[in-house]
């Protein structure tokens, strides 16, 4: 017994001394922690802490595609163009001196760089560095692990050149009406050659990470936090107002909300659910705002699978749905009913589904059903699929409301089926397994085409209005109406005249609703909740939402703090 004890004590001592030995030397040179020793009663005056549940997946502009990644990249990096903070539809020059010149045929875009642009580490940004960065995107982008960012460049861009130190010339493969929108995305910001190697993707470079934007990442710990400090070489108009921003990651929204109440964070930004939003709204000292975002929810109807291959069934469902009730009973009125796949505020958006079906209209729904022989005695049996968690835990609740609404026709019997996300999305978008299910969508670039084409072209993510076919971009439309839809979309995609383009998209929406390609339900606003001592700069149009608008761009520079 005794010897054992001694043995244990000795081995413990050995281990402890080993650790001290290993770390001792490393520990000594560490500077004393900077003024961070105050008790966490609120956060320091010069620091703003933003809470989120989004994890960072990549810092590399050629690879990043997630929402949060783009937000971070756009705060440390400026592009040639940018969205006017606080607006969802106004582009303005950023690194470029103006909005650029477009050639007659719509294939060549020429931009001139502003003088004196530097990366945060002092490197000058030349036209060549910018062109190299875009060429890097074209060559290695498709091979990056996330692999999607390249898809915003390779289909459109033929080449990028830098004829002199200040001029950048883009040559497109075909006219793209929304190319300026693409240029404003994080994907088209210049990657700092000192952080990112030319020939491979680097998702997580060593901090500090410097870009051309107002901030740089001074340090980060994955799944915990990212620290931003002002870029000393930044010359733009979005000068940082505080000396540090920390983005802190939470495992779940509940904790994020509690942390905001406790004053551990200043801003809770994504992804607070409507219920937490409702809870926080009205709490003293806390401001809760909604932003009309581009995140929509809709039902996918598989037009080649029974019973959705029957147009009457699709129209009956479109007539029976009561979007207001979903909003009221599940979301406490915090989501907005959606009557077109194109959310309000986008080019050409109109509420076609409301005009066409005026739902809820049970009489009309019953007529459609009766026309196909479905009655109370012979009800339509419908299996509706949904993922239980991916679109929020409340998905089941609104699926139950939809079930109730459809069954109110008396001629539909709904069975709800839950399936785990990765299985679900494969089965639904594959277009072979589910006749009807729910999906969400968030734009890649803020343009109506991005809310219509994906649901029509090439299988249409499971709608099958145009069957996927090898060697075609659009697939094979299943009927005349579908053919008309594809033609209209193709025309609109290359039309550079805004008025004509808007008109085309209105026509598209009409045909789309008539076919009930998909059934738009509502769009989810983004919620931003913050302590009342945080303010958005009044220089921009929507200070109350900290200048986040429909493009869901968050400029950390517009934030101020008055303790």
């Amino acid at each position, binding site marked *: 017994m005794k010897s054992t004890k001694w043995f244990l004590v000795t081995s413990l001592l050995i281990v402890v001394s*080993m650790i001290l030995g290993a770390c001792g030397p490393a520990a000594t040179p*560490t500077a004393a922690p900077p003024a*961070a020793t105050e008790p966490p009663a609120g956060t320091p005056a010069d620091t703003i802490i933003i809470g989120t549940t989004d*994890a960072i997946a990549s810092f590399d502009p050629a690879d990043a595609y997630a929402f949060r990644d783009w937000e971070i990249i756009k705060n440390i990096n400026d592009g040639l163009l940018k969205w006017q903070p606080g607006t969802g539809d106004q582009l303005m020059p950023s690194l470029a001196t103006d909005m650029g010149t477009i050639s007659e045929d719509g294939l060549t875009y020429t931009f001139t760089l502003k003088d004196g642009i530097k990366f945060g580490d002092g490197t000058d940004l030349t036209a060549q560095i910018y062109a190299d960065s875009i060429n890097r995107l074209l060559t290695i982008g498709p091979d990056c692990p996330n692999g999607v960012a390249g898809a915003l460049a390779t289909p459109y861009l033929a080449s990028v050149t830098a004829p002199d130190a200040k001029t950048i010339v883009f040559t497109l493969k075909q006219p793209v009406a929304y190319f300026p929108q693409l240029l404003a995305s994080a994907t088209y910001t210049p990657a700092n050659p000192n952080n990112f190697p030319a020939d491979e993707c680097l*998702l997580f470079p060593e901090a500090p990470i410097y870009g051309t934007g107002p901030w740089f990442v001074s340090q980060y*710990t994955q799944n915990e936090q990212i620290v931003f400090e002002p870029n000393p070489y930044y010359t733009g108009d979005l000068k940082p107002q505080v000396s540090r921003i*920390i983005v802190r990651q939470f495992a*779940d929204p509940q904790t994020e909300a509690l942390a905001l109440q*406790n004053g551990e964070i200043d801003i809770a930004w994504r992804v607070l659910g409507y219920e937490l939003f409702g809870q926080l709204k009205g709490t003293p000292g806390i401001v809760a705002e909604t932003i009309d975002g581009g995140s929509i929810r809709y039902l996918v109807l598989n037009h080649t699978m029974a019973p959705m291959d029957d147009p009457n069934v699709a129209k009956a469902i479109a007539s029976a749905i009561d979007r207001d009730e979903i909003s009221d009973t599940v979301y406490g009125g915090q989501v907005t009913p959606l009557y077109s796949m194109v959310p309000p505020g986008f080019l050409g958006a109109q509420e076609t589904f409301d005009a066409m079906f005026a739902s809820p209209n049970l009489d009309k729904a019953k007529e459609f059903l009766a026309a196909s022989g479905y009655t109370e005695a012979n009800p339509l049996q419908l299996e509706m699929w949904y993922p239980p968690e991916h679109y929020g835990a409340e998905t089941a609740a609104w699926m139950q409301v939809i079930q109730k609404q459809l069954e109110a026709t008396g001629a539909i019997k709904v069975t709800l089926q839950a399936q785990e996300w990765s299985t679900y999305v494969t089965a639904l978008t594959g277009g072979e397994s589910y006749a009807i299910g729910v999906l969400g969508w968030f734009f890649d670039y803020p343009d109506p085409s991005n809310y219509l084409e994906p649901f029509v072209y090439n299988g249409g993510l499971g709608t099958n209005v145009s069957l996927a076919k090898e060697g075609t971009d659009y697939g094979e439309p299943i009927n005349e109406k579908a053919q008309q839809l594809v033609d209209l979309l193709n025309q609109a995609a290359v039309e550079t005249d805004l008025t004509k383009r808007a008109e085309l998209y209105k026509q598209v929406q009409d045909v789309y609703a008539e076919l009930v390609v998909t059934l738009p339900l509502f769009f989810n606003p983004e919620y931003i909740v913050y302590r009342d001592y945080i303010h958005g700069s009044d220089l921009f149009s929507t200070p109350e939402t900290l200048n986040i608008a429909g493009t869901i761009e968050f400029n950390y520079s517009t934030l101020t703090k008055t303790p």
Partner: protein
Amino acid sequence: MSPIALIALMIGVPAVLLLAYVFIRGSTGLRHYILTRIALTLPMVFILATLVFFVMRVLPGDPVRSALGPKGSPELIQQIRGQLGLNDPLIVQYGRFLGDMVTLDFGNSLIGGHRPIVDEMSERFPATLELVIPSSILALLIGVWGGTFAASKRKRTADYLWRIYSVVIYSLPIFWLGLIMQLVFGIQFGWLPISGRIDPIIGTTIKHITNLYAVDALITGNWAALGSVLQHLVLPTVTLGLILSGVFVRMTRINVIETLQADYIAAARARGIRERILVYGHALKNAMIPVITLIGLQVAILLAGAVLTETVFSWPGMGRYLVERISSRDYTAVQSVITVFALLVALISLAVDVIYSLVDPRVRY
């Protein structure tokens, strides 16, 4: 040195020393036993890891699909699957997996940042350790004291109260207890932080050495960080510790009662030794061996409890990591976590057995 290597050393070195000591000093029977145990442990881990590997592959989901959602075109998905090596024949993937396991490399995550699993684990594993060690200590203190006290008052009110305590504690869903702790102490009174491992501001000053923040703060003398770490530890530790203590009270009580019925205790009692000394001096001392052994085997309960506790308190540990990665079908992460868990469980039960055999000469192999 990477944090995970440091921690592996912290656990591994004493373990190897212990084994070596036992091996040299022990009897032939014991030596034989240890060899058999090791020979059995490794296939056990291997079987479990293999099972997880194939089971993950027959799952209908797919990490690429899961990450891209509706945005992935079939070509894109094929291309990314190719890059991740998911299009290789299963047997090739399995070979690669085995290679990774043997070299303890574990490969790269299949989602998000595609980081090496070893890096992710060297953040997650210490977090779990930092949670479970103090919880176990707390549970042990409550359990041993309560169990012994209950045993000494057998069939009296105190005994029944402690038994009711252990049953009620056992019946509490741990996540419910955690939520109520958060509400009461975090929100209502505002005494304690309710999430994370450290205050985010102070967190920037910490030096990541072992990633056990308390240890890191201690050895670098960062007292502000240490204070913050300890504050953040309180609620999760108490939650997990309380839940565990129920089981511990029960085990201690039964073992002390058993010991109290031994002949030598009866003899001592007959000699007029005071009951207090009898219970705490003699019975507890002798009951401790089986108790510690049994408690060592509760590592399974501990890890399961940790998953739920980590979820409630946003604690970035291994359990949370596993749950997250299962839903995104990150094969490499899941199989690595399960393998590590299996190794851990096997090692701890081996260690418990060996210690038991060492201190209790009655055990013969």
